[in-house]
């Protein structure tokens, strides 16, 4: 018991932090990609509308 406390035999159990880390990394990347996609689609619609207005004038 004392030996296992004083001398670490196995790596620390930090697996849950690893999953949290990768979850945040890929989650943040996914949100950014989605945000760019969503902005681009909205702008395309705006542009189409403005071009239509310009043509009418």
């Amino acid at each position, binding site marked *: 018991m004392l030996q296992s406390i004083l001398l*670490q035999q196995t*790596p*620390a*159990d*930090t*697996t849950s*932090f*690893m999953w*949290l*880390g*990768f979850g*945040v*990394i*890929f989650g*943040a*990347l996914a949100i*950014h*990609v989605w945000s*760019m996609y969503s*902005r*681009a689609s909205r*702008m*395309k619609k*705006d*542009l189409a509308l*403005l*071009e239509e*207005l*310009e043509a009418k*004038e």
Partner: protein
Amino acid sequence: MKSRPITLKILDWLSVILLAVAAYLSIVWAPQEAVMGDVQRVFYIHVAAGWGGMMGFLLAVFSAIMYLVKGDLKWDIVGLAGIEVGLVLSFINIVSGSIWARPIWNTWWTWDPRLVTATIMELVYIAYLMLRQGIDEPERRARFGAIYALVGFVSVPLSFLSIRIWRTIHPVVVGSGDAGAQGSFDMSPDMRVAFFFALFTFTVFGVTLLWHRIRIGRLQDKIERLKMKITY
């Protein structure tokens, strides 16, 4: 907006594949670190995201110089793209570092020079985006943005060098660091493969994100011009 160029389509798919392989190499292929355990695997992406962020800020400073020399608004669009992508990747770098620190340093946050300088860098660029919002006139906004990007870039090398010039507990894995660093480790050859692959992945992925963000910027510019034309 023109459809995506073939090179960008290739970059999109290449980024997806590279990210999947980088995740595999980090989570499965690289050996488990002997003391820290699995959380050390976050390190590969943590450093690569930091590198990608700095690449974005470097592009912004280059664009700032180009804008001030040439006065062409396209450089403002490129600079803004660099800062936005840089911010996202730096955010990932800071948050993943904090998650690593929780089991290794026993805290989510500490007032270490690296953490503080990285956060200041992030805040400097967040302020850039906020201040831009307050300027309507495109030329003035671009001039302000260029000068701000030049001055704000001071925070980037400061953050990079902080662990090499000040006493810190943040490990320096590549090169030599402070003897008081907590969480240092020597990379095995397999770990090096995962590390350099992640760096390569985030270089390609960073370029892909930048290209997409520049296209959005161009589209936004076109909309603004058209709005002005219709209104006046």
